């Protein structure tokens, strides 16, 4: 019976191509807009590191001067070098890493390629374990290396391939900004989206090509690439040394705190630290510490922008209008067929069968809508991707989304078809046969 | 009142020419009650449509209440139809979503009457057909005979000069039919000209005068049947 109904449905659609085309088109566009915006929202808002995100936290302290102070102000997004070092040395945590962005010309391996700027990041050894960074060759450096500012580096597979081709990069020598480093490891293709570990300053999309020990970068006075914010009353001494001694904030910090009691201990430590610093004349503002869990940090940093949310709301509103429109079109279609319905009923078809027939027809429209909708979704994704490189990477279709689009289209079509179908089944045979 | 001379109506589709009326001559004087009869396909309905200014004609002349309708455009024909004619259809043609009051109101809205005058006319017309008490009811709540009476009220509300009735009792049982015919006679008695198309000879007999149409032309009832010309097509 179902196949019969499908055949009837397809035949009926072909009888009135304009009306059918309109229904399918409107349904497809509505579904596409919704699915595309929803996908972007989902990708951007998803947990980038689900198995660890519950244990990773961003500590924040407010060392700003009183200039421009407003009650209830947010604390700065980064911290100063001296505070980061203090936390790393003394704060109670399973693992911690500070980080700041670098950039430099990387040379090594082949000599025939032109020099180019690469982006990098200065981190502690804990970084790789905390964020489960997968290695292709070798491993991260050790805590010892951190302590003695060793000249070691970890490369991205992209950079390693570019410099060394098919050969092993492990143990080889490279020069970054004129200084020699030994490659201790090469990581696999690791491109979490969004780039959650370094959201302040720098591109949230482009992933770094080299990782250096933070103390090494500081010792070599490698300038920070990213945001340097100096809201400080005390004078700023010149040079990199002055920067490290100042209250300018340019370091981002992460701590791994597995249990609730760990978190409490860390929070207490931060409070105590700030009090101690106040006694020394720093931290003039009222205490304003934060310890953001990873998911919360993503929200604070507005990884999913308000614009993305707005677009998703409006897209679903659009789908709703398309649905109501489809109800109207189906109603028009089924009403025009009242005569046929009357005949079928007169010939003995029970209401239920008619219901099944017309719902199947609605589902056929839904399938056609899904096919067109997939194409339209690709178009919508392209439109969304034009907003920024970040969204361009997020706006991609995968299998889950494909299936969801089809389900949404067919589901919406059936939903829209419920009212018209119910009305169609109410037709009494006699009335239809007598008139016309 | 209604004077047609040599009236001809030819329908042309792609390949077929249909002569529905061939040189029809008819003269209805004011105050008459004329029945137009004829077999199915003779052109009765075409005659009625032209008489009612619903269709144009191909050749001949037609004067309605002294007005030559030949050169009138659609707008003028509508106005003439609205003021001078009243229509009664076989299928009643009441508008199902409007109550009786609003149904009778329809033709009045297309004239320049104020709200009060319309109300008075509607109440009077419905009173004439005995349905004033059911003004707010809907057609679906009435019997066939009552619906036709409402249609008559609608036809009368504008004080027409000529009433055209197309098989007014066609959809009614014999008792209701009798009631409608009595009403029509009563209306004619008060001075309204009535032209009624019917295929029922009993009904025709109740009119003052019969005009018989066969093959698009008038023929006397008493005369010999006109031989059909070769290749005559059908349909009115």
């Amino acid at each position, binding site marked *: 019976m179902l196949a019969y109904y499908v055949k009837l449905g397809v035949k009926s659609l072909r009888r009135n191509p304009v*009306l059918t085309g*309109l229904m399918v088109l409107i349904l497809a*566009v*509505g579904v596409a*807009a919704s699915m595309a915006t929803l996908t972007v929202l989902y990708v951007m808002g998803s947990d980038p590191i689900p198995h660890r995100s519950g244990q990773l936290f961003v500590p924040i302290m407010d060392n700003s001067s*009183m*200039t*421009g102070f407003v009650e209830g102000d947010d604390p700065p997004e980064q911290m100063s070098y001296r505070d980061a070092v203090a936390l790393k040395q003394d704060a109670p945590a399973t693992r911690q890493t500070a980080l700041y962005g670098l950039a*430099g010309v990387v040379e090594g391996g082949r000599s025939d390629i032109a020099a180019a*700027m690469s982006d990098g990041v200065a981190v502690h050894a804990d970084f790789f374990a905390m964020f489960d960074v997968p290695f292709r060759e070798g491993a991260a450096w050790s805590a010892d290396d951190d302590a003695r500012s060793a000249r070691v580096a970890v490369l991205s597979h992209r950079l390693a391939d570019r410099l060394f081709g098919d050969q092993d990069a492990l143990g080889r020598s490279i020069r970054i900004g*004129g200084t020699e480093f030994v490659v201790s490891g090469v990581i696999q293709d690791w491109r979490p989206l969004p780039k959650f570990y370094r959201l302040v300053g720098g591109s949230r999309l482009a992933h770094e090509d080299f990782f250096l020990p933070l103390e090494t970068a500081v010792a070599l006075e490698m300038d920070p690439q990213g945001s340097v*914010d100096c*809201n400080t*009353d*005390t*004078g700023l*001494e*010149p*040079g990199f040394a002055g920067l490290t001694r100042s209250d300018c904030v340019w370091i981002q910090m992460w701590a791994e705190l597995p249990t609730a009691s760990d978190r409490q201990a860390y929070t207490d430590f931060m409070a105590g630290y700030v009090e101690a610093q106040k006694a020394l004349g720093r931290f003039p503002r009222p205490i304003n510490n934060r310890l953001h869990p990873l998911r919360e940090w993503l929200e604070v940093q507005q990884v999913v922008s*308000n614009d993305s949310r707005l*677009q998703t*709301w*409006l897209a679903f*509103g*659009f789908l*709703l*209008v*398309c649905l*109501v*429109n489809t109800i*109207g*079109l189906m*109603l*028009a279609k089924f*009403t*025009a067929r009242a005569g046929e319905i009357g005949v079928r009923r007169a010939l003995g078809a029970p209401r239920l069968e008619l219901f099944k027939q017309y719902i199947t027809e609605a589902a056929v429209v839904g399938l056609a809508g899904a096919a067109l909708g997939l194409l339209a979704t690709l178009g919508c994704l392209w*439109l*969304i991707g*034009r*907003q*920024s490189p970040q969204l361009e990477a997020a706006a991609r279709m995968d299998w889950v989304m494909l299936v969801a689009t089809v389900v949404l289209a067919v589901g919406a079509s059936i939903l829209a078809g419920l009212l018209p179908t119910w009305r169609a089944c109410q037709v009494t045979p006699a009335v239809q046969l007598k008139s016309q | 009142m209604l004077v047609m001379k040599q009236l001809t109506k030819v329908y042309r589709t792609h390949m077929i020419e249909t002569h529905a009326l061939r040189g029809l001559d008819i003269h209805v004087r004011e105050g008459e009650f004329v029945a137009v009869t004829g077999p199915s396909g003779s052109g009765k*309905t075409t005659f009625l*449509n032209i008489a*009612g200014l*619903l*269709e144009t004609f191909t050749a001949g002349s037609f004067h309605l209440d002294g007005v030559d309708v030949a050169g009138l455009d659609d707008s003028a024909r*509508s106005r003439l*139809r*609205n*003021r001078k*004619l009243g*229509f009664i*259809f076989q299928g009643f*043609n009441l508008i199902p*979503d*409007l109550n009786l009051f*609003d149904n009778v109101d*329809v033709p009045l809205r*297309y004239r320049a009457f104020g709200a009060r005058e319309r109300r008075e006319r509607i109440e009077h017309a419905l009173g004439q057909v005995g349905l004033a008490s059911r003004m707010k009811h809907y057609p679906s709540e009435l019997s066939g005979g009552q619906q036709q009476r409402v249609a008559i009220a609608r036809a009368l509300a504008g004080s027409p000069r000529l009433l055209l009735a*197309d098989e007014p009792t066609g959809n009614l049982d014999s008792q209701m039919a009798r009631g409608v015919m009595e009403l029509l006679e009563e209306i004619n008695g008060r001075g309204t000209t009535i032209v009624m198309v019917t295929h029922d000879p009993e009904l025709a007999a109740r009119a003052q005068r019969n005009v018989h149409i066969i093959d698009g032309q008038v023929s006397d009832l008493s005369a010999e049947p006109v031989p059909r010309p070769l290749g005559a097509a059908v349909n009115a």
Partner: protein
Amino acid sequence: MEIRPILSTLLRNKTGAILITTQIALTLAIIANALYVVNDRLAVAQRPSGAVEEEVFRIQVLNYERPDDIAHAQRHDVQLLRAIPGVKAATWTNQVPMGQSGWGLTLTVDPTLGGSGVNGSPYFNPDSLVQALGLELVQGRDFLESEVVEIDPATAQLRADKVILSRRYAEQLFPDQPEVVGRTVHLGAGADAAPLQVVGVVDRLVSPFAQASDAAYNTFLLPVRYLTEHSQYLVRVEAGQRDRIMAEAEAALLDARSGRLVLQNQTLDELRGNRYRNQRAVAGLLTAVTIGLLLVTASGIVGMASLWVTQRRKQIGTRRALGARKADILRYFITENLMIGTVGVLAGAALAIGLNLLLVRTIELPTLPAVYLFGGMAALLVLGVLAVLGPAWRAAAVPPAVATRSV
């Protein structure tokens, strides 16, 4: 106007009318908010920078082999750039308008008054930035060569003696004082704050961040030569020759010394495009949604009206037989459409306000101005009438003979 009978008919055929009303209401709610956002975003993206954008480009180089005399290297580079035919002006700079990367500092009028400073974005220019960007001086003068200070960030703190303010920054620092040339502002706070004398005011100069608020125009110029390995140059050229000159400039700077990379070479227009890419794209997307909604709603109206015309064919013929002219039939359908439309836009206005309140709370959208609401209502009513014209015309074409001919 036969409003009551039309209303009576509509009430007995509620479903179709409700479907259309719903579509109109939802569409109004969405497009009122969407168009507001579109206008807001486009307004931001079209703000002038204060520079003659079509004549300017910026080129950024990195000396990864650090030169011995950076000041000399910078001067030499500017000389090379100026030597290219068609170049009107060039200067070294630390940041460019809409470049998305730059500095923020605080200037104060009275450094002893804690918390009184105003943030602004400083442009360092050892050569004339006013000429390189084509800025408009509204008070005072440009810097003199003798006023330029060389600062090595490795050894010295940032300081200068003179400053040029943007008009808005001057208004923020010296409220209600039209003439600020000769006045003094301070860099930093406290006792060590360095005094700067205002020598000029430019009409408008946007910061590199070009943030959405008006604070983007709080900028100032310092006659400083800052010695870093990175160098950016802003170059102003004769109209129409920019592409050629950009290529020549890149070649010239690379040739000038070894150990150099050209990091960026773009026009100010490109920088604007990059900075406002997001705004423009959001505006584009929302405009597409608006157009889509209007088309969908219009098609819904056309569909429903066509259905009604078909269903009421007999009725229309009867009306014509009873004396209605074609114009009367047209008027009937248009009146019916306007009645449905009016209910729709009234409901839609309520929905639009409700949706706006929701968006204000969840995504910090500003409150919808009334003009968008009324404009949207009018637009949808007009759209409805336009959409119904087709079916109404068909209705008017139904011949009166339909009354007698169809059974």
